């Protein structure tokens, strides 16, 4: 029996966390302000009230401490879900993530499992001060032993967080903070459905002129661009990557074989990034199908600028359409 609820991404994650906690008493939520306040974005709202302070931990303010103690709790058999307030604050925890979370399973030949989820609100467009708008996901996708996903809609948010928590592998869960409470991004979530596999990308709009691949907050930009392109008589296929490590590029290859053109879209700087990896793999797999080089629309190779400039920095609909035109002109 379908149980449909119209949810924002933020509310979907909240409900997903709640359900995971109900199903497994070993699931813990830990982070700064996640308890009484419900997190700075209120994503964990109400959970401490219902599950208690021992399952929703308002921790001291230190990211290495949050991740490092989560490692010990995982060794003990818990399934910690850590919240990092903003992506720009994850770096004090980078050591624990790369040295312990990512490697303990390998180092012990599987004797120790690291069922840890690290939730990271990421991306720009909220007019914030520095360290509050970045896209560092490529850094984590580069580390063997970690899995990285990014959701773009409420359905994936609801199911994805539960699947991530159930996974015995450590997962960085990148959440598009700009879209947390977006009414435009509300969607109906069937809380009784059988969800898609977590580590699969998906064609979210079919088209024939060119392919745009995106993830997280950029999926909305890609879809907006596709809608605008339609008015110009161009048909864009949009793929939501969803999983950043492992990358599931088969649907992208298939799409490129059909359209002959690929635009990789991301807010992150372009150099040595996920879009670089996509470009490399697509030219390797689809060399004879390409009508133009893989082009990228990304943030610039600069630190994130002051927010008064972010409209220039962040890829928008016009930059995507411009890049589609460049591809078509090849």
């Amino acid at each position, binding site marked *: 029996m379908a149980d449909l609820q119209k949810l924002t991404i933020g509310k979907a994650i909240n409900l997903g966390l709640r359900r995971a906690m109900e199903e497994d008493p070993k699931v813990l939520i830990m982070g700064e302000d996640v308890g009484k306040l419900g997190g700075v974005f209120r994503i964990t709202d109400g959970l401490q009230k219902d599950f208690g302070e*021992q399952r929703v931990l308002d*921790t*001291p303010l*230190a990211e*290495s*401490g949050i*991740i*490092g*103690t*989560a*490692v*010990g*709790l*995982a*060794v*003990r*058999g*818990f399934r910690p879900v850590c919240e990092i307030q903003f992506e720009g604050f994850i770096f*004090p925890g980078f*050591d*624990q993530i790369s*040295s*312990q979370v990512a490697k*303990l*399973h*390998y*180092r*012990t*030949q*599987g*004797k*120790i*499992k690291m*069922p840890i989820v690290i939730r990271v609100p990421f991306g720009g467009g909220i007019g914030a001060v520095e360290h509050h708008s970045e896209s560092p996901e490529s850094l984590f996708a580069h580390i*063997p*032993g970690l*899995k990285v996903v990014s959701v773009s809609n409420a359905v994936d948010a609801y199911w994805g967080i539960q699947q991530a928590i159930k*996974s*015995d*592998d450590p997962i960085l869960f990148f959440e598009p903070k700009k879209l947390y409470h977006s009414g435009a991004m509300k969607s109906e979530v069937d809380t009784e459905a059988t969800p898609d596999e977590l*580590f699969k990308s998906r064609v979210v709009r079919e088209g024939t002129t060119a392919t745009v691949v995106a993830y997280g907050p950029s999926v909305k930009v890609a879809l907006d661009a596709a809608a605008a392109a339609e008015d110009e008589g161009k048909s864009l296929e949009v793929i939501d990557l969803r999983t950043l*490590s*492992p*990358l*599931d590029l088969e649907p992208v290859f298939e799409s490129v074989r059909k359209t002959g053109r690929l635009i990789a879209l991301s807010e992150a700087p372009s150099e040595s990034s996920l879009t670089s990896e996509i470009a490399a793999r697509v030219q390797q797999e689809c060399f004879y199908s390409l009508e133009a080089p893989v082009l990228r629309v990304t943030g610039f190779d600069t630190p994130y600028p002051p927010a008064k400039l972010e409209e220039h920095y962040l890829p928008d609909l016009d930059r995507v359409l411009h890049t589609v035109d460049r591809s078509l002109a090849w």
Partner: protein
Amino acid sequence: MPSEHWTHPEPGDGPAAVAAQPSPEQVIAGLRATSEGGAELTQLLTPEGERISSPRFDRYVDDIDAEALKGLYRDMVLVRRADREANAMQRQGQLGIWVPLLGQEAAQIGSGRALRKGDMAFPSYREHGVAYTRGVDLKEVLGIFRCTDHSGWDYKAHGFHPYTIVIGNQVLNAAGYAMGQKFEGKVGDDDSEATICYFGDGATSQGDVHEGFVWAAVYDAPLVFFCQNNQWAISEPTERQSRLPLYQRARGYGFPGIRVDGNDVLACLAVSRWALEECRHGNGPVLIEAFTYRMDAHTTTDDPTRYRLSDELEEWKLKDPIERVRAYLARGGGADQAFFDQVQADSDAFAAELRDYCFNMPEPPPDRIFSNVYAESTPMLDAQREEYLSYLDGFVGAGEH
């Protein structure tokens, strides 16, 4: 120590400020290796092998009769012999590197023997003696340094976490584990458990150690922080880590700190038992600073003659952790020459067994590179594995080996 590193009170700070500031010399005297560890040093067996009484800690070693002490002596001799053998094997090119424990046997055996089966120990990378007390086969430890493995033992069965090479990481991991023990209600009754975490004086400068102190304190985690202050973090002396004796730092976090003679196995056992009991009763963490000395190099890649004087080593040799137990046992008649000879023979056999194993240690097959990266592997990794193994297969029959 250059004087510009020390902040002197300004005249305007007033007499109280002047009085509160120890001179650089006083601070160094409290920290340096050649000091006696200060008036606060807990000791039960002097370097000369005399048993001294401690009203506070005697009761924690009431059960250690001559037989039990002989056991501790044997433990120390065996791990030292194994350590020396491994050091020699590294020199012969049989190990990639070795991390000597020479001089720290009492700290490791004393604290390790204080643990119960249900406890968990989080080592750094020098805790071969603790590994031994937890029943870990030192052959498996050797695999790390012969570079055939990262950690061979079953951490759960032995209550001994994998070695941690990144300085201080394990302190937070231990804090989390101990929080888990607390959350599971494993404190305050007969079923209680505790965690012990090992780190060095150098690690106390790491943020993770500070954060571990904070976490363990605010969650009342049953965690004993066991700092082996062996005076040197590679070439950096203790006064490069702290202006305060390390055990005194605990006060700032709100839990007890104690300095024990790290070369006194009886004192290390007693103080560790006390600290673990505090944890089991739910009183939260304890910091133990085992005041000891690394008598060999940091690792076999190191050359301590570049940064420390031989006088210092000579002075510490007089405080040898094994010799004082031997003197006590011999003087009190608890052990005769036959016992000492037997222990020596046992340790030689132990070392020979290690050597034999090391020389014949099987090398892991290439597909091991790809195994257990994830609990659930990924298509990309599977493809990489398949491609590489098939590439290797191409050499078979082509005269290549």
